[in-house]
């Protein structure tokens, strides 16, 4: 990247932030290796790469969360070395990470002006705050109730609060780290509009994302990273999803999906049958209110659903976030108590209202959020995998370590968990390996039904394929799989049958080979919404 030479003054004005030979090492891992990136002012600059490619680290170096070991960060033509987010902030740089940094018990306006309150004699000046807030809403075009408590808002709205907060501080440079990972399709579209309007206001956006379609659609410039290095600086016009994936993983993907195991014979008895399942309004039942989206107030009742799943069958459940997908499978598993209805696992007659009962009957759940509902992050891989199976390996009251090691190492190898030994705490594993650890937990001989809720969320491309392979192989071996996913591609590529949920009901059912993304999407939104969208 050429340094600005005399006679090229335009270059300086166009470039907002430039990274020159920036490197950062964590322990023995070279997270960022001699990276050069030029980010033009007033552009949307996308940063893509697999998990662990170093893109988040680059964002955090610019935002002052991390300090580079070597190299220079040049902001507005001046080399800067931020030692804290506060210093970056002062230079007009804001980062919005996946873990939103808001105070849930305070109002929207309090959060937006946190640290830059209007005060008079040390007291917060309410009228002035209100006036500033209205000006801000008008300027950014983000309508939001200033008095709502932030904790009561959905993820998408909380993100808007963060964006308003950046605007309130007159940030010129906003870094968004995976902003759409937890949003529904609609919310995603709204965020895209917002990002474009930031650009219209001459605010530079560094957009870190997994979703290549949105990157191609949104970005002005794209930087592809792999193993801590920049492998390509490019423009969307000269790329396709395929070419970006190739650049990200350094090879061509041979088909994204494994071959489907043969569709099981439906004349035999189903291994899982659900009859007339009714769930209560969610939120009240999710014991810790962990799943932010599913706890939103407008989540409908899941009303009287029937479902049969046969051994060896992969059944997908599609639907928007909030359609009742997660509530349905949680009730099937016994994580939440249904209001009415019956869940039978072949052979098992006993009523199962609790997860431990389901596990006894051969049902396993990979929950929506691996960090909050799936894994014990501080505990070892061994303990995490063995947790539901301890009864089998307890001898004379004590957990038999040899049986445990046999069970766990076979399971971990089967699921292809890498990146550490069995004693490694799972928090040190990458997202993909953490997800595989959950597969290793359940893919043991006794399992007959596996329920997987968004099993590939936040997982890199390579691990995704391994997870698909695991699901296909397990189904080939006779396991019944119930797969909830927001990624239609995955449902279409993997399932024998896909049920579409909308407002707590199954509104459509498609079977392979008639699976079609557009059809599924149409039914997810309902006809009316689609008419407007597709025009």
């Amino acid at each position, binding site marked *: 990247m050429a340094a600005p030479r005399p006679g090229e003054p335009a270059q300086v004005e166009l470039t907002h932030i430039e990274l020159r030979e920036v490197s950062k090492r964590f322990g023995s891992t070279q997270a960022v290796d001699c990276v050069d990136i030029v980010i033009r002012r007033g552009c949307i600059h996308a940063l893509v790469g697999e998990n662990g*490619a170093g893109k988040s680290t680059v964002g955090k170096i610019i935002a002052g969360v991390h300090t580079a070991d070597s190299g220079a960060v040049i902001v507005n033509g001046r080399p800067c070395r931020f030692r804290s987010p506060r210093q970056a902030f002062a230079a007009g740089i804001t980062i919005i990470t996946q873990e939103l940094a808001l105070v849930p018990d305070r109002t929207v306006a309090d959060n937006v002006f946190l640290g830059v309150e209007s005060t008079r004699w040390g007291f917060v000046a309410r009228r002035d705050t209100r006036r500033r807030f209205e000006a801000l809403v008008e300027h950014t075009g983000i309508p939001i109730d200033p008095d709502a408590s932030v904790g009561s808002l959905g993820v998408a709205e909380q993100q808007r609060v963060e964006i308003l907060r950046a605007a309130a501080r007159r940030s010129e440079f906003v870094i968004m780290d995976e902003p759409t990972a937890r949003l529904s399709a609609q919310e995603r579209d709204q965020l895209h509009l917002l990002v474009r309007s930031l650009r219209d206001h001459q605010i530079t956006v560094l957009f870190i994302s997994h979703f290549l379609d949105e990157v191609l659609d949104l970005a002005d410039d794209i930087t592809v990273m792999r193993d801590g290095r920049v492998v390509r600086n490019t423009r969307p016009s000269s790329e396709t999803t395929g070419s970006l994936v190739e650049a990200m993983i350094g090879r061509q993907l041979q088909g994204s999906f494994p071959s489907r195991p043969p569709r099981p014979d439906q004349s035999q008895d189903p291994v899982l049958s659900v009859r007339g399942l009714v769930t209560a309004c969610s939120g009240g039942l999710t*014991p810790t209110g962990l799943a932010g989206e599913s706890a939103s107030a407008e989540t409908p009742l899941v009303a009287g659903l029937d479902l049969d799943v046969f051994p060896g069958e992969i059944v997908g459940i599609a639907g928007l976030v909030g359609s009742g997908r997660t509530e349905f499978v949680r009730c099937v598993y016994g994580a939440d108590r249904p209001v009415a209805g019956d869940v039978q696992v072949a052979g098992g007659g006993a009523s199962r209202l609790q997860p431990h009962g389901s596990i006894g009957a051969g049902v396993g759940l990979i929950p929506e959020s691996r960090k909050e*509902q799936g894994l*014990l992050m501080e505990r070892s891989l061994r303990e995490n995998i063995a947790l*539901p199976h*301890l009864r089998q390996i307890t001898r004379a009251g004590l957990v038999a370590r040899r049986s445990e090691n046999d069970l766990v190492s076979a399971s971990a190898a089967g699921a292809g968990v890498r990146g550490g030994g069995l004693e490694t705490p799972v928090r040190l*594993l*990458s997202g993909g390996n953490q997800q595989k650890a959950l597969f290793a937990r359940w893919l043991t001989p006794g399992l007959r039904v596996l329920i997987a809720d968004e099993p590939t969320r936040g997982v890199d491309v390579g*691990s995704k394929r391994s997870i698909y392979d695991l699901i296909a192989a397990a189904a080939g071996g006779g396991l019944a799989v119930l797969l909830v996913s927001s990624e239609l591609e995955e449902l279409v590529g993997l399932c024998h049958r896909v049920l579409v949920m909308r407002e707590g009901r199954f509104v459509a059912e498609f079977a392979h080979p008639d699976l079609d993304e557009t059809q599924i999407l149409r039914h997810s939104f309902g006809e009316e919404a689609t008419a407007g969208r597709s025009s």
Partner: protein
Amino acid sequence: MTDAAALSRPSGAGRYLGVLARYGIVWITVALFVLLAVTTDGFLTGPNLRNVLDQQATLLIAASVATLTMIAGGFDVSISAVAVAAPLVALRVENATGSVAVALLAGCAFGLAVGATNGAIVAFARINSFITTLATSFIVFGIGYVVSGRSIMRPSSDSFRAIARTRVAELTTATWISLAVVLVAWITLAGTRFGRHVYATGGNAEAARLAGVRTRQIVVAVFALSGLAAGLAGVVAASRTISATPSDDFSFVFGVIAAIVVGGTSIAGGTGAVWRTLLGAFFIAFMVNGFNLHQIDPIWQRIIQGLVILAAVAADAWSRARRS
């Protein structure tokens, strides 16, 4: 491999630092032991060490079991109240029946009942465990006054003192009981399915539940066990002094929590070990013993103890922050 690259493995030096930090309480306790052995004449003698063991017995009984409660994510401050009231219940029974065995059982049963009640409130009414046990503490202190008629109680027969003060192989029975409790708590936590479920419940209750752990049962059980141990500790203490006095004294639980935390068990739950509590208790005991041998003013002892506890908690918070 990108998977491997995503792992931030500590480098050689970092790994040694990690081991150093993880077993910090071991090195520090050993160092203190050696220091005192070298700098004082009285420390490394049979009578002094036996005395330290005897004095730590009641604390170890309560703290080793309370470690399980803390790892499960609970915080039991009712240990003090139980340790005050249980011996009063036990002596009341002893005065009525004349049987030391029945008295011991009654004291333990009282502790178990209080603990189970605490656990049930925490697990089913979902009230914060600190607040729950603070509230029940006042009730139990009150029961102590009622049972004793507000006065000091003494056993009717001299054999009550045999519980703690019999000598077996040079050590008191108080010491033997405490070592037995430590051993049982250690094996239960480190080796059994129940122990794994305790870690899982404290580490992430929702994840544990979805993996088939009956987390409410675990919570009730750890509080019940903690109550039982506090009751036993109270009876052993009463046997050592051959009396029990009703009071509102909360100080016992502070010593218990200090031992657990200095050992390195996290107050956030999910990590820790009984052996850590054992070392934490002895570290503090050696420190106090050393102060006495060096004739340091007891006022300074308090201040230094406070600083040590702060340092332990700060080390825990620091290592936690470094991980995330």
